[in-house]
């Protein structure tokens, strides 16, 4: 598929052929840093001073390049498609090759950053458990009550490295058996022919 670039985007990228190839490489590096860590105005100001152009032009150039990389990675463009999409900008062959190399080198990194973006539900991280037997309490001596105490650690959804939320649960053995059988039923649902047919078609 081909990327359709808006007029504004083409205008922003029109800055790129006016500088040399080393600067384009530098812009590529700034773009990747932007995607990984965000950017600061100082970087733009420094580049603008060195190239003697206004700061907005530098900023638009970097952002235009970043958007081009993002959209290409998002749609998993092949080399041919990428070159065709960039052709419309009217750059010379060398610049096209540089952009292509930049795209190919960073494609998988960009995709992994993009895959972390959508927020998701808290997901399982760890389950600690202990099995206790209550022998006596203040009101009643000589008891035998088995109990399972669990601490369920969940990630907080959007970032797998942030703090975990923990839930403390307690259950008796019969509820535990019921819990196990329900979860095993859920696992068995993957093996039904209906589910297998769908998985085969996705692959």
């Amino acid at each position: 598929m081909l990327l359709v670039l808006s007029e504004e985007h083409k205008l922003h990228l029109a800055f790129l052929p006016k500088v040399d190839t080393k600067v384009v490489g530098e812009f590529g590096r700034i773009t990747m840093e932007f995607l990984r860590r965000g950017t600061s105005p100082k970087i733009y100001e420094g580049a603008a001073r060195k190239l003697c152009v206004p700061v907005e032009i530098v900023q638009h150039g970097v952002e235009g390049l970043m958007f081009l990389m993002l959209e290409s990675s998002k749609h998993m463009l092949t080399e041919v498609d990428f070159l065709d999409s960039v052709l419309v900008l009217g750059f010379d062959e060398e610049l096209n090759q540089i952009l292509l190399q930049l795209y190919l080198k960073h494609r998988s990194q960009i995709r992994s950053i993009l895959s972390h973006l959508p927020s998701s539900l808290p997901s399982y991280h760890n389950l600690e458990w202990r099995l206790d037997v209550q022998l006596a309490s203040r009101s009643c001596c000589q008891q035998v009550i088995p109990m399972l105490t669990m601490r369920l650690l969940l990630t907080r959804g959007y970032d797998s490295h942030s703090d975990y939320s923990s839930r403390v649960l307690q259950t008796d053995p019969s509820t535990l058996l019921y819990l196990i059988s329900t979860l095993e039923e859920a696992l068995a649902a993957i093996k039904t022919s209906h589910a297998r047919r769908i998985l085969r078609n996705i692959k």
Partner: protein
Amino acid sequence: MRFRFCGDLDCPDWVLAEISTLAKLSSVKMKLLCAQVLKDLLDEGIDYDKVTKLTADAKFESGDIKASVAVLSFIFSSAAKHDVDSESLSSELQQLGLPKEHTTGLCKSYEDKHSALQDKLRETSLRLGRLESVSWRVDYTLSSSELMEVNEPIIQLKLEAQGAESGSRETTVVSVSADKFRVLLAELKQAQAMMNALQ
């Protein structure tokens, strides 16, 4: 195939795969790697530079290094968890394809640190709201805004415990009158007698 060190379950596929990675190391380096992994499991700190140097000969990439540390951690902690003796561990690992010299080195390290590992695992078992410290003070109330002559002893108890849900330190301060405190003490002594009977 059921393995005792996996808790009488099948051995996970990734463990099988990484055992062949471990076999690429020489048995001497393997023994040193085991020592490092045991130090990590006992919370003595693992020296990643040493690990990198040990695996450099076999040209392990960073993924292989992480995998071999993970598989050794799994074998040690799982074997200690199910209280497997070192001969059974040795025969099971050889069944999985780990060469004999590697297995002997691994099992020797396991046997040395077996009880220390079990103690450490016992300590880190789930415990909610662990009591850290108790401090107390006995006051004597002379008088108050309600009554001119009160003349009563009162105890202030400060309990520092880990919160059950949050896991962070929580401080609770309670003041207990003499009668209530006598009841509290009697009940706690009963509980202590029960605990001593169990030991």
